[in-house]
């Protein structure tokens, strides 16, 4: 332990703690811009500088370790002046068209400039502009980049994908896609972690809200929206609502107020996924040697892209079951259209997802099978859903409550935990146990797969069958896990992987809050919803049961294969 004085207060911290963290522990605020704890502590923006007695230069508190007896001052004239000057320098290279920026009101640089009372810039403003195809799911605006390198570090250190790189040196140093490639050819999974860790508006997901409004306004279109599990754990954050206040009925009421004709739940198709994927898993387990093992989950499009990019040889290990988003679209434009007696061409299917890769997924030819345009016409992020709510001037606190529509609105507790790491595995095991033994396990029997560790492994028994499972979140952990499988160090039967750290709770489409990783807290909300749900087993979803009775027959049936599975081994990116 070392003891130092910060602004006259004695602070004792562990050796190796940075001045910034020590100050935070003491409740002293130091502004930051490029800092991301443990991921990007590079002292590049020099906004976090502080005075250290005995040193002739200010220190970047984000990467200067505390030393015993150190005397630090965080709020002197010299510190304030220097921080402001550095912010002014950053602003001279930043396209501050805040009024038309997606991050307006949620921009770290904007907050810094406001807090530091930057009113007139002493330097001419000369951002660098570069072209970018705005039809891509991920959009980069060079003119707003502040070279904080967070995207580079997140992609390198957390996701281990190395899509972003630094190009040039000196005044022209810039972030760019690696090897001078186009982002579409750079091996990007579109996980969106660079977006959620960008402090400004330099990285964003494509905005599709205007197209959604167009569809709602079109009298010839029947608009159907599905909401992914993790969205309900995060959507209220931007409205300052607590996780309890941001309830599912309020969320449904908001979607109805926006004007969707039918508000459904992706939980429904998550339960359907479990029926298909669970049955597929039992098929694989009971026919050793016939299928590549372990079986990988396939509901995360970032992960599926990862496999296709990094390990095409493992594509056969992916479950052929489509993701809940795509199953939902396929069922909507077939079963549901038939049920309400409309031409599926008239249905406009929208998904609200915690995800940026879903925008890419819904456009993949091979996962569109209902034959009426795209099964899911548009996928929007939680953030876009929030923006649509604001565009409609809806106050979610006073809007009241509403229920999901029938028949694609029913979901179980097993489905809702899809939105957090380990959830798909747990849900699948609950139903697989039933399918193998004919009876339900204790709903919490598989809670061992919960938790935010990057790579967990557990072994369970269902009847005579022993299932060795592994769960990983974050692509950096996925890489480690795959390497271990391929080198024969570990052996599993069933592996769940989510591209984003903590799973969809920390998804690339989720609301952004500077300096906070909220995936874990959002996951807890999903577990709470699971505990209180009417049933916690996918195979008990009555709407899913009805779908099989009325339309599909049984899991893995011919029709189920046509609509709900894809030849995942074959199609290319």
């Amino acid at each position: 332990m070392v003891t130092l004085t910060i602004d006259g207060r004695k602070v004792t911290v562990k050796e190796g703690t940075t001045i910034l963290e020590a100050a935070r522990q003491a409740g002293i605020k130091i502004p930051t811009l490029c800092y991301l704890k443990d991921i990007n502590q590079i002292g590049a923006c020099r906004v976090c500088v502080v005075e250290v007695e005995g040193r002739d230069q200010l220190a970047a508190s984000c990467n200067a370790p505390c030393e015993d007896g150190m005397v630090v001052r965080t709020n002197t004239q010299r510190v304030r002046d220097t921080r402001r000057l550095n912010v002014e320098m950053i602003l001279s290279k930043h396209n501050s068209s805040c009024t038309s920026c997606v991050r307006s009101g949620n921009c770290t640089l904007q907050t810094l400039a406001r807090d530091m009372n930057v009113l007139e810039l002493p330097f001419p403003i000369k951002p660098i502009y570069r072209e970018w195809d705005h039809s891509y799911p991920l959009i980069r605006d060079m003119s707003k980049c502040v070279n904080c390198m967070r995207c580079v570090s997140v992609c390198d250190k957390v996701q281990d994908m190395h899509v972003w790189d630094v190009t040039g040196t000196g005044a022209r140093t810039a972030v760019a896609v690696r090897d001078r490639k186009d982002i579409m050819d750079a091996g990007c999974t579109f996980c969106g972690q660079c977006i959620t860790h960008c402090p400004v508006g330099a990285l964003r997901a494509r905005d599709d809200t205007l197209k959604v409004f167009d569809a709602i306004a079109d009298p010839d279109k029947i608009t159907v929206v599905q909401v992914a599990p993790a969205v309900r754990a995060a959507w209220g954050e931007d409205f300052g609502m607590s996780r309890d206040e941001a309830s599912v009925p309020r969320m449904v009421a908001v979607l109805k107020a926006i004007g969707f004709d039918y508000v459904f739940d992706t939980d429904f198709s998550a339960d359907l996924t479990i029926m298909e994927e669970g049955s597929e898993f039992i098929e694989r387990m009971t026919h050793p040697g016939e299928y590549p093992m372990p079986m990988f989950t396939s509901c995360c499009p970032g992960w599926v892209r990862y496999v296709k990019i990094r390990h095409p040889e493992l594509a056969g290990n992916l479950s052929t079951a489509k993701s809940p988003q795509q199953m939902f679209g396929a069922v909507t434009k077939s079963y549901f259209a038939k049920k309400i007696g409309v031409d599926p061409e008239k249905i406009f299917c929208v998904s609200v997802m915690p995800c940026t890769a879903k925008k890419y997924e819904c456009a993949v030819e091979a996962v569109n099978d209902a034959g009426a345009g795209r099964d899911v016409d548009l996928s929007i992020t939680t953030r876009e859903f929030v923006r649509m709510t604001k565009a409609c001037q809806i106050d979610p606190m006073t809007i009241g409550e509403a229920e999901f529509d029938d028949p694609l609105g029913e979901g179980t507790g097993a489905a809702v935990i899809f939105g957090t790491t380990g959830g798909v595995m747990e849900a699948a095991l609950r139903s697989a146990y039933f399918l193998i033994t004919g009876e339900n396990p204790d709903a919490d029997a598989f809670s061992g797969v919960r938790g935010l560790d990057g790579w967990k492994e557990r072994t369970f028994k269902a009847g005579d069958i022993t299932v060795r499972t592994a769960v990983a979140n974050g692509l950096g952990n996925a890489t480690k896990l795959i390497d271990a499988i391929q080198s024969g160090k570990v052996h599993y039967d069933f592996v769940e992987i989510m591209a984003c750290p903590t799973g969809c709770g920390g998804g690339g489409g989720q609301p952004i809050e500077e300096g906070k990783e909220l995936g874990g807290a959002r996951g807890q909300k999903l577990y709470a919803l699971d505990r209180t749900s009417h049933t916690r087993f996918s195979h008990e979803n009555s709407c899913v049961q009805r779908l099989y009775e009325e339309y599909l027959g049984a899991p893995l049936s011919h029709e189920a294969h046509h609509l709900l599975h894809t030849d995942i081994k074959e199609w290319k990116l």
Partner: protein
Amino acid sequence: MSRLRIYTPDKSQAIVDNLYENLQHRIEVAPQGNCPVELTDAFLRLCLAQSCGKCVPCRVGLTQLSALVEKILEGEGTAQDMMILEKASHAIVDSSDCAIGREAARTVLECLKGFRDDFMSHLNTGRCMSSFSAVPCVSFCPAHVDIPGYIALVRAGRYADAVRLIREDNPFPSVCGLICEHPCENHCRRNIMDASVNIRGLKRVAVERAGHVDAPKCAPPTGKTVAVIGGGPTGLTAAYYLALMGHSVTVYERRKKFGGMLRYGIPRYRLPAKFLDEDINVILSTGIEAHTNVEIGKDISFSEIQEKFDGVYIAIGAHSYKKLNIPGEDAKNVMSAVELLGAMGDEEPMDMTGKNVVVIGGGNVAMDASRTALRLGAKSVKVVYRRRQSDMTALAAEITGAIAEGVELVTLQAPVAILTDESGAARAVQVKPQIPGAYKGGRPTPMNADLPEEEIPADIVVVAIGQAIEFGHFAEAGIAASRGGTLQADTSGAVAGANGIYAGGDCASGPATVIKAIEAGKTAAANIDEYFGLHSEIAFDVDIPQALSKVRGASGRCNMTDRPAAERVHDFDLIEYCMTDEQAHQECTRCLRCDHFGYGSFRGGRKEAW
């Protein structure tokens, strides 16, 4: 009113001088990986700042060149711009009135040719190809030793850890602590402030304070076998890392002892045997099978080795010598420096008592030979060199050391013959005075001056004009040689067309430094391992102390000190003193920790394995 005045620089001129000095420091450190196109532009702007502005090509021309380069840097350049850039540069070279404009444009032309790919990348993709190297000392060290890491360990008093850390990349810490040419220091960022950290000196501190440090454990046996031919620095480096990777290694050495040029080329007063033996013993302790007195082609054929081993590393060094090709060279008492120093390695010193010795050459070997001759009792030692002292390739410290001990430099004299007495022994070197001519390869070519030839009396003549490689047997075995007389190997060390045969060190690169030999050995070890289809890592398992307070303000560098010349010239004991604890501590605190500050905290601070 005075008619003439004595020039006294005013305050502003003093600052201008200081500015130039700072600029010089910055140029000296030359970081690795900056955008060369950007640098071209900066160069042009500096040239413009030095222009008087009288003539069009310089005043306007250089401005336009800079504008074009800027346009290209902004990603807005066209092929037409590149053409104009080139044409205009030619016009400026052709029509400038003085060197300011002419040489600026000439340099731009060189840039356009030298790094055209960088220009084209900016032009075609709007992006730069360069990528900055975070830690200059590490990137300029051929073996990429973690220098800030071991300096931090020395500062913390963890000397054995420092030695372990150095050995991750270089198994010759004791040797390099004494005789490394330390290219790391040339680019030390501290040079921008005052002078580089005394990196080599700190390495010696680590080694001396640590005492014996065991080698790490070898990886489990892989079942692969490697023969290393030549027990010099590159051969032993490769053998060491291959052994650590778990391969079974056999080293064949032609001479009585291991060490190669370290033993048979470098005099003991620079590298005492106990330092060399310490490194070699640690290397061999990894379970390497070591054979001395075995000559390939005589005692065992190369094809036999090829059959017996899965991989071969040819590391035979450059133990032959170049000849002057002048009359009298075969006379009695004429020898090569390789022979003289080689005999010293086997502890069979020649007696030179009372002799007048002439050493011909201007490199480090010439200095080693002349200083050895003094220690062997020579009455006088003259180094005869056909260029100027400043053109000598020997390190400045070696030259001043030799002069201090009494070696006389005779420069701008080209030997034309060795004159003999009636017994056929050398009696003098006949020389022709020279005058420096036009530059070629960075040095002026000496030309015959309009002066008569002279005679320099010599009882013994030592020729030190370069080494050569003997590879007759390998040539017969089909290993190709380059026009320069070296074995042909690519940058991975692989010999073309020969599976599993690698070559490196002096025999492949031509005579070079020990650290370059170590680089070659390390490279060969990694690539032989890859050739086996493996990827055995040499991993880094020493934790490095965190970077603490920055040191600001200039602080003088503690240089190494030597024993007094009058004393040391009589023996072969080590001439250099080690740093004191006080000096070592100061040098450690002068390290700017580029692994942590600057780009190091973002990328490239530390490689954990190779």
